[in-house]
């Protein structure tokens, strides 16, 4: 019979962390993204454009650092799919800086909110997609869909490898895209959203409510029926657009969706993971009544010890600073890892304080030192 003891141990310590229970050791969670590819013998472009290489690179990464769970398995940037749609200025691999950059862009005008609410298929076809790839041919579209299917095969294969061979606990498969993020990260862009919040806040709220009712609620109803015990938790969501909101705007636009989700999850014994870019501490009061065991938050720019003080009932992921992983020594990294584990107490999953994407974000020997220490350090 197959030995699944490592998976069960990992799942148990992650469950303990979510529930803020005493653990045997701290779980280690990867917030590494394109850095995985830079930590290989291949270029970023070679890796992203060849699924055989990508598969090997992601596997090498896990075999080297042995994370308990990972956000990304090389599936964040399906560049072959977007490239098949023709050249656009939105996503570019920059060979010189070894990075992928995404330009702030608008593929929705400030006058398109009503069409978005009335008929999303018409909106995406005539407005968003037309602006995204205006010179698209039938052949390119067909080819992009073939690429998409190849990408899905890669995604399924690498996910299977990580569960079956490496016995990692998969990150949640269900993703709640916050309604405001549709506009902030994709359709209106940062600048467009910032202007809309001042010029037509009511329309933004109306569109967000429409998404909540037509897309978010059906998703939540499906999730509460599922058995997601084989995953880290039931669902995750990413916070990006909150970075341009003040407290009142957060309360009007962001919080109602999150509160609706958390209430439904609490009633049904489900768990949510928030990946929060930028800072969250200024919104901590919103979370003070969230019950133990419902929520884990991966934080980036906040001081994780301040977050622990502000919200003692919530599990936090993060803490390991890129300034140490990238520029410190292995000894400094071990010292800080110990400080994090000792200082955070129960309800802590060791991770990194940003999405690690650039070569100088981390040195191999530093990550090895931090992870090896955390794996052996008994609580």
């Amino acid at each position, binding site marked *: 019979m197959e030995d699944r003891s490592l998976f069960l141990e990992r799942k148990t310590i992650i469950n303990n962390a979510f529930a803020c229970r005493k653990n045997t050791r701290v779980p280690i969670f990867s917030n590494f993204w394109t850095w995985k590819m830079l930590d290989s013998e291949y270029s970023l472009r070679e890796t992203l454009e060849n699924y055989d290489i990508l598969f090997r690179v992601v596997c090498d990464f896990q075999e080297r650092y042995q994370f308990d769970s990972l956000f990304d398995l090389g599936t964040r940037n399906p560049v072959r799919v977007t490239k098949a749609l023709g050249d656009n200025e939105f996503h570019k691999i920059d060979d010189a800086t070894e990075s992928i950059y995404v330009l702030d862009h608008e593929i929705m005008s400030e006058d398109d909110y009503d069409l978005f609410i009335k008929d*999303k298929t018409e909106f*995406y076809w005539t407005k968003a*997609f037309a602006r995204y790839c205006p010179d698209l*041919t*039938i*052949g390119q579209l*067909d080819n992009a*869909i073939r690429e998409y299917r190849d990408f899905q095969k890669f995604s399924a294969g690498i996910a299977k490898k990580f569960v079956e061979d490496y016995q990692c606990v998969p990150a949640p498969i269900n993703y709640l895209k916050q309604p405001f993020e549709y506009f902030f990260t994709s*359709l209106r862009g940062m600048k467009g959203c910032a202007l809309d919040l001042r010029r037509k806040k009511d329309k933004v709220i109306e569109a967000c409510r429409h998404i909540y009712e037509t897309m978010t609620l059906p998703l939540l109803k499906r999730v509460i029926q599922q058995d997601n015990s084989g995953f880290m938790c039931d669902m995750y969501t990413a916070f990006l657009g909150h970075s341009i909101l003040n407290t009142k705007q957060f309360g009007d636009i962001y919080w109602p969706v999150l509160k609706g989700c958390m209430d439904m999850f609490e009633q049904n014994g489900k768990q949510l993971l928030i990946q929060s870019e930028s800072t969250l501490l200024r919104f901590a009061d919103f979370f003070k009544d969230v019950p133990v065991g419902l929520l884990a938050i991966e934080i980036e720019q906040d001081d994780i010890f301040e977050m622990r003080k502000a919200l003692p009932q919530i599990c936090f992921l993060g803490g390991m600073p890129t300034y140490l992983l990238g520029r410190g020594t292995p000894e400094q990294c071990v010292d800080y890892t110990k400080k994090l584990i000792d200082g955070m107490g129960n309800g802590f999953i060791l991770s990194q304080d940003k999405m690690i994407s650039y070569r100088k974000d981390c040195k191999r020997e530093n990550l090895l030192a931090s992870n090896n220490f955390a794996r052996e350090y008994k609580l």
Partner: protein
Amino acid sequence: MPENEDKKVSFTYPEGFIEAANSLEGFDDEESRKAFLAGFIPYIVMM
């Protein structure tokens, strides 16, 4: 590849949308082509 592979996509709705959907290979019927395309576009522009 589709016969009209070099033809530019028309972003009219519903005519251009249906024409593009019907050009796609590997689907059983028009409804499944349209449903796939309607889901694929938001996915791709949100990447």
